[in-house]
């Protein structure tokens, strides 16, 4: 029993068919639970008022935006090295989800920034690097869409993902150098003293879990769709050949 067994599309379809309802159900519970808890059962911040509550969407979305790219990097590597089709399809399936997460983080950040910083947008390092990350997602998705041959597309997007990762990180630090920040530092960490207060922390953890599960559910659905589309294509080709 190794993890590579799930690289077999048939095995993947079986397992994901079993797992999907569970993941989707848990997503609903944690996401609704975390957001309702955060929105209605936590106190307002003494300085920020109720705008602080956008944290329950903003922080999980921002975390996912980065982690989805990391996941795409890993699956692209698996595709390039071991050539498991499911892996390439998972990367393809994850990209639009990651792009939307980035967009959510940017938009919720702007909505929060307007009353707090007095501006919708500021060329702050974190904001700027998220915008650049968004551009990388756009390019990646566009390249998938532009190439007809699925294997060529998987290879080229895989290479783009590798090079893009290096440059995304490079841009992150270059941007740091270019402009001083307005964005606060990390509000969550396991080892530092300075953290958000527990009343905000617990619902936040729940909604982060919700976002992770939501991503998982969406990627499973989208990967299953991709696999089915592939099978359909194969069937049609066979039909035409016959």
């Amino acid at each position: 029993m190794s993890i590579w067994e799930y690289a077999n599309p048939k095995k993947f379809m079986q397992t994901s068919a079993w797992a999907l309802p569970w993941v989707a159900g848990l997503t609903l519970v944690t996401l609704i639970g975390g957001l309702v808890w955060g929105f209605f059962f936590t106190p307002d911040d003494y300085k920020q008022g109720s705008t602080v509550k956008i944290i329950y969407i903003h922080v999980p979305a921002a975390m996912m935006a980065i982690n989805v790219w990391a996941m795409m990097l890993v699956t692209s590597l698996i595709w390039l090295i071991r050539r498991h089709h499911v892996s390439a399809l998972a990367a393809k399936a994850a990209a639009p989800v990651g792009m939307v997460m980035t967009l959510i983080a940017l938009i919720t950040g702007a909505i929060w920034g307007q009353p707090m910083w007095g501006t919708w947008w500021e060329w702050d390092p974190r904001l700027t690097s998220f915008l650049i990350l968004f551009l990388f997602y756009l390019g990646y998705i566009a390249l998938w869409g532009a190439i007809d041959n699925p294997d060529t597309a998987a290879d080229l997007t895989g290479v783009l993902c590798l090079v893009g990762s290096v440059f995304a990180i490079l841009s992150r630090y270059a941007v740091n150098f270019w402009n001083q920040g307005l964005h606060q530092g990390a509000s969550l960490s396991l080892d530092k003293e300075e953290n958000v207060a527990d009343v905000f922390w617990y619902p936040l953890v729940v909604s982060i879990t919700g976002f992770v599960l939501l991503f998982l559910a969406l990627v499973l659905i989208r990967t299953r769709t991709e696999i089915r589309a592939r099978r359909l294509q194969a069937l049609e080709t066979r039909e035409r050949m016959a």
Partner: protein
Amino acid sequence: MIALLARDLALAVRAGGGFGLGLAFFLIVVTLVPFGVGPEGGVLARIAPGILWLGALLACLLSLDRIFALDYEDGSLDLLATAPIPLEGVVTIKAAAHWITTGLPLVAAAPVFGILLHLEGAGFFWLTASLALGTPALSVLGTFGAALTVGLKRGGLLLSLLVLPLYVPTLIFGAELVRRGVAGMETTTPLLMLAGITAATVALVPFASAAAIRVNLR
């Protein structure tokens, strides 16, 4: 390899357009900017480093799709891929040829265009230095974008979408270097960062480009 470089240079110079086009485009950008932001010298001098860098970047982008496309269409890219020199070497030579035909003229012309934008005294030196250091990275990164899109019919727009985000670090350090040079501030950090990015790009990106070409020729 030298023969290949000579061939690419000759093609670029003789086969119409490609050679001077980037430079003309650069001039147009520089000419249009004052219409957009107004002719006051102070404003122009302030934004000159950024505009000149952006202009160079866009001019560089303009000729990228020609790097491999013509060779791909007439089949000589297949020959180059099976030639005794490694494909990574071919890519590097292609990037060098692209740099000599677009990057180098931009570096040479930038100070002249700097006059048009009221660039300040120290800026001329730093602009030339930063462009000379930065534009090789632009060409090499361009080969990567061109390699990804070489098999596509209308890859031009996609090419810019893929390549421009990769240009961000180079642009940041290049323009910052000129700004600091003009302001008389310490310039070592952006200078070294820019040189480092270029060195790393020239050394590593050809491998990615060659990999992409191999996929496209499969």
